[in-house]
């Protein structure tokens, strides 16, 4: 899932200081699970903002709502009316949700309440770990299901650097050495030969952003349409 972190109140307050009627819109999927931008967090931010603005003698009307997914047009349609009735929207979605909402209500400014950080797993209560860098050329089949590009700070694909440190990383003791993890897992599986090969340089040419992906079946349909249309 996508992991986000709420921005400090001061930063959010500064962005919307000239707006008088604001919709705070939460997102009920990834950022709700990582406790950054779901229904509860909408409620909290709304209260913080109302109180802060009232204390400053600059009261603001704050509306609250949360949709299932802000990255999906069909979930967004029903709230657009409400958004257009405000002079600004604070989106508590990831950067994708903020952008889709901005596209849908072009005349109303949309402000991000979160910093979008990574895609990863919930490791234990309150702790998330980055797991995938979206390189577009997955090698997890050879590396025991542990990604050296995401888990190794340097993204090394041919083994550890000299900074490997009793299973931890030179960068920080909070980080595991990906290559210790990979080695130990493949050892258990009897598959160390997987990583004896020299992996070639990564292919950054596969990721020229923004990437567009068209489903194969639709590619065909699009061509047909163009042909007959």
């Amino acid at each position: 899932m996508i992991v986000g972190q709420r921005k400090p109140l001061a930063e959010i307050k500064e962005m919307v200081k000239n707006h008088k009627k604001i919709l705070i819109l939460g997102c009920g999927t990834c950022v709700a699970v990582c406790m950054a931008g779901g229904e509860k967090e909408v409620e909290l931010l709304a209260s913080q903002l109302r109180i802060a603005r009232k204390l400053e003698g600059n009261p603001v009307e704050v509306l609250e709502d949360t949709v299932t997914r802000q990255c999906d047009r069909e979930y967004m349609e029903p709230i657009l009316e409400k958004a257009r009735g405000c002079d600004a929207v604070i989106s508590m979605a990831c950067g994708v949700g903020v952008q889709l909402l901005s596209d849908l209500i072009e005349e109303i400014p949309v402000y991000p309440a979160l910093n979008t950080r990574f895609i990863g797993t919930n490791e234990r209560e309150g702790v998330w770990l980055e797991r995938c860098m979206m390189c577009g050329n997955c090698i997890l089949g050879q590396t025991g299901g542990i990604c050296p590009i995401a888990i190794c700070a340097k993204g090394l694909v041919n083994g550890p650097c000299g900074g490997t440190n009793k299973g931890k990383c030179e960068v920080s003791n909070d980080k595991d050495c990906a290559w210790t993890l990979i080695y130990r897992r493949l050892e258990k599986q009897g598959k160390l030969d997987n990583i004896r090969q020299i992996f070639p340089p990564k292919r950054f040419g596969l990721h020229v952003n923004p990437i567009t992906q068209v489903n194969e079946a639709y590619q065909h349909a699009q061509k047909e349409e163009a042909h007959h249309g």
Partner: protein
Amino acid sequence: MAKFKQALQSGKFVVTAEVGPPKGTDIKEMLHHIDLIKDRVDAINSTDNQSSVMRISSLGACALIKQRGGEPILQMTCRDRNRMALESDLLAANVLGIDNVLCLTGDYISVGDHKDAKPVFDLDSVQLIQAVRLMEQGKDLGGNDLNAPVKFCCGAIVTPEADPIEPQLLKYEKKIRAGAEFIQTQAIYDIDNFKKFMAYARKVNKDTKILAGIVLLASAGMARYMNSNVPGIRVPKELIDEMAGAPKGKALEKGIEIAGRMIRRLKDEKICDGVHIMAIGREGVVPDILAAAGL
């Protein structure tokens, strides 16, 4: 054949040392160090933004070593340059008469002094060695022809005290297969443990020339600091005690004595093919270390 390669193949005990380029344009001290050691060692490494701290580039420093009549080894890390920049620097190095290259991963950005810079790591050290060898065939990594090939004596590093050691050795084998012909190791202090690494390394390829890394101990505190803060370096307790037992103001002399003693033993017992001396900011004492080693 390049001077350093000749030394490696001569069968003699090879000695290299490093200089760390300065941050800024005052190069008096670096030139002094180069002049002091250039005729005493077989080659001089220039570090590449060592410890992720921005300084004069390794290529620039190597050109200076060459100008002063020394034999430079160009250290190249994968941290700051993508494959295009690395390849073009390799071309530049070769036409400037720099014939030796040492391929390293590089420390991570955050340990240094530009914490928000982009960490590149487009290639890793194994792939960089492959790139050097490919360019010797007259090709670049894009599959294009060079108008004339490069020629390098190409080396790599290994950390014999890495914990755990197995993944490190797996990578070592890849470096040798990729074409590394010499190795300069991370600092070693436990020679008996180093012998185990050497037995393994000789099995991987008996022709690979291995220079043991000698980092000068300047104090007991430095040894303790490295033990707790530098992964892959382990100073045994006896050496720390020996450093601590040095009379006040004589710790550096003790460190020189220890380094000299280690080098002498490595040479006399024919444990490896040479040493790489890292005096880390005290390059001026390299001749004293050599004297202590009887070289």
